[in-house]
């Protein structure tokens, strides 16, 4: 109750400035509402701008990427001459895989254009096929040796320049000297097209192959597998270490100068540029411990160091957020410290820890700079079979391709970005699902 005398009902309460309080409030309300409206507007503007930027980025990436998901193929009738492939008729897989399929393809192309006779022209004609076309024929024969001696229809990729021509990226109306295909080749291409031999197919190679010098033979699978092994090493090391460190620091460590210094340093580590971790990895893991360069093992170690502080900080925040009443309840029935921590605090903090870890993992998955330092930027054709095989990772693959002169590699680089984004979205979905799973009210 206020001690000031209240005016009667007839006279409204007066403010110090002599006007009725209701009027003063009303006047101030106007400007308060105005500032609220302004703030909402700023917020809306900021969000719209962010969404717009995101949309533009996504749109350009996807637009560039779409052509990479298809590949122009040619349906060739190839005669599988027994004397070329397997003269002795042993059907030995070794012989079959070493046979000269290029010859057969040349013959098939020559059959299509009997009027092409000069050496140079025949070479130009054959250059329309991808250098990898022979693998397609070889695979066909190895899978089914009974085809030898028959004339079969094989679908092989065209080389990237003709793929670009088919997609309209190389235009026939530019001067001949300024494009990578000659007038003659365009004419041949058009004739093939009018005969219905050219077909656009889904680019399976993109999802199944490793890197290659020829864009039409290059795929992201090698780098996806490389990323997988790297992330596996990263998380297997970082998650238990970071969660253990967070639990120890938060629950068991004495609060003194020393632990304070550690805490400050962990926070600082989270802000260290990632390339520094790469240099550290190069100096410690490769030069000192002699671990193999360019391998997911070393990459994973480096990325684990990099993600540790992120996960520790997130985990500590999650542990701090567990209400003390739960700890008291556990200790109150006679649980030991370790029991109260592992039976109650950790499970309750788990959603937060997982979220932090997945954020850390997503960061690591998109990291390039430190991996360049430990040699994961190499040109690697083979799919890595384990953490000790030379490998590259998706962001590095994107970096390599985006630097290539061929247009087709630029497309593939955008396609790889889309795939990487897909993985990141999946990881975030997993984080959401895990959080739901572990989340319980208390």
């Amino acid at each position, binding site marked *: 109750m206020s001690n000031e005398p209240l005016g009667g009902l007839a006279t409204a309460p007066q403010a110090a400035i002599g006007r009725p309080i209701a009027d003063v409030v009303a006047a101030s309300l106007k400007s308060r509402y105005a500032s609220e409206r302004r703030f909402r507007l700023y917020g809306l503007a900021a969000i719209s701008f962010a969404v717009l930027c995101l949309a533009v980025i996504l749109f350009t990436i996807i637009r560039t990427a779409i052509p990479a998901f298809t590949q122009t193929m040619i349906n060739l009738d190839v005669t599988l001459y027994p004397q070329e492939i397997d003269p002795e008729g042993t059907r030995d897989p070794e012989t079959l895989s070493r046979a000269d399929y290029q010859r057969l393809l040349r013959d098939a192309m020559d059959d299509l254009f009997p009027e092409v006779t000069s050496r140079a022209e025949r070479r130009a004609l054959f250059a329309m096929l991808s250098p990898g076309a022979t693998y397609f024929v070889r695979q066909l024969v190895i899978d089914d040796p009974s085809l030898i001696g028959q004339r079969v229809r094989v679908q092989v990729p065209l080389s990237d320049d003709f793929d670009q021509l088919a997609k309209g990226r190389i235009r026939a109306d530019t001067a001949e000297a300024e494009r990578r295909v000659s007038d003659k080749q365009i004419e041949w291409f058009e004739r093939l097209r009018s005969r219905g031999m050219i077909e656009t197919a889904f680019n399976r190679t993109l999802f199944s192959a490793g890197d290659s010098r020829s864009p039409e033979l290059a795929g992201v699978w090698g780098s996806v597998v490389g990323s997988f092994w790297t992330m596996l090493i990263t998380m297997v090391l970082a998650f238990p270490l970071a969660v253990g460190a967070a639990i120890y620091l938060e629950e068991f460590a004495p609060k003194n100068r020393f632990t304070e210094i550690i805490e400050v340093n962990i926070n600082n580590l989270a802000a260290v540029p990632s390339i520094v971790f790469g240099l550290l990895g190069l100096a410690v893991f490769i030069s000192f411990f002699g671990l193999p360069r360019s391998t997911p093992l070393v990459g994973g170690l480096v990325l684990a160091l990099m993600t540790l502080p992120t996960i520790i900080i997130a985990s500590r925040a999650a542990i701090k957020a567990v209400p003390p009443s739960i700890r008291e309840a556990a200790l109150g029935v006679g*649980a030991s410290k370790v029991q109260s921590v592992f039976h109650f605090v950790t*499970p309750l903090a788990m959603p937060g820890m997982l979220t932090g870890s997945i954020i850390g993992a997503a960061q690591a998955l998109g990291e390039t700079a430190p991996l360049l330092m430990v040699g994961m930027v190499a040109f690697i054709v083979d799919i890595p079979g384990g953490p000790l095989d030379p490998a590259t990772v998706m962001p590095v693959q994107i970096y390599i391709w985006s630097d290539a002169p061929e247009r087709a590699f630029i497309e593939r680089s955008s396609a790889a970005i889309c795939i990487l984004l897909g993985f990141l979205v999946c990881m975030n979905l997993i984080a959401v699902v895990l959080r739901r799973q572990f989340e319980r*009210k208390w």
Partner: protein
Amino acid sequence: MSAIDAETVRATAMPKSDAATVNRSNVPAFVAEGVNVYYGSKQALKDVAIDINRNQVTALIGPSGCGKSTFLRCLNRMNDIIDICRVTGNILLDGQDIYDKQLDVVQLRARVGMVFQKPNPFPKSIYENVAYGPRIHGLARSKAELDEVVQTSLERAGLWKEVSDRLNQPGTGLSGGQQQRLCIARAIAVQPEVILMDEPCSALDPIATAKIEELIDELRQNFTIVIVTHSMQQAARVSQRTGFFHLGVLVETGDTEQIFTNPHDKRTQDYITGRFG
């Protein structure tokens, strides 16, 4: 003004003077002497001395911030988890100093259970809430035995009828009063000697409060109970002995009847008649 009429208090306190109970408990469970508690440099308790009798309910009353909870938490060393908290003096449980280095704090807490002011069931099923204590202490040798312990504890806490058909549902899904009784069941499942209760009814409606008071009266047969309460009617209804705290000092202890009818100290009198606090 919300003064309690001293007459009313006297009337409710009267029937509780149970001579038989007083005689049985001539050996105190807890003996506290010269207990000082500091939070950092701030002293929260000054030279507290009190005997807590076996198989009795001892009520601790006093104005807010006077150190009732602090003292209660000394009795099962729950203050250990507060970094800045320092306790000096002697607290003996069955003649043994509980702040002795030799004494195992986990064992102490198994002997001295606690029910907190705010219901704090574990984020687990009702069954698990009660079974957790016996399980970690290895009190049940088989699943059947554990089931038995859970059932008797819930029955004694007066909750069995309400939850017997949903033991697997989360304990946090119960009502506030049910949760508090679940916490009591959890505490008695470990079969402690002493149960400390810090304002167990502060968040409850009168009906739930009445149930818990009834329960406390029953539990007295087997347990020693120390209860902190802000309600003087409650102290009068459930306790046999009462201690009055004021500004960190234990001003007066005595039989509940005597404290409420004939307090020796002026401050006690002022408090129970509602002149301050």
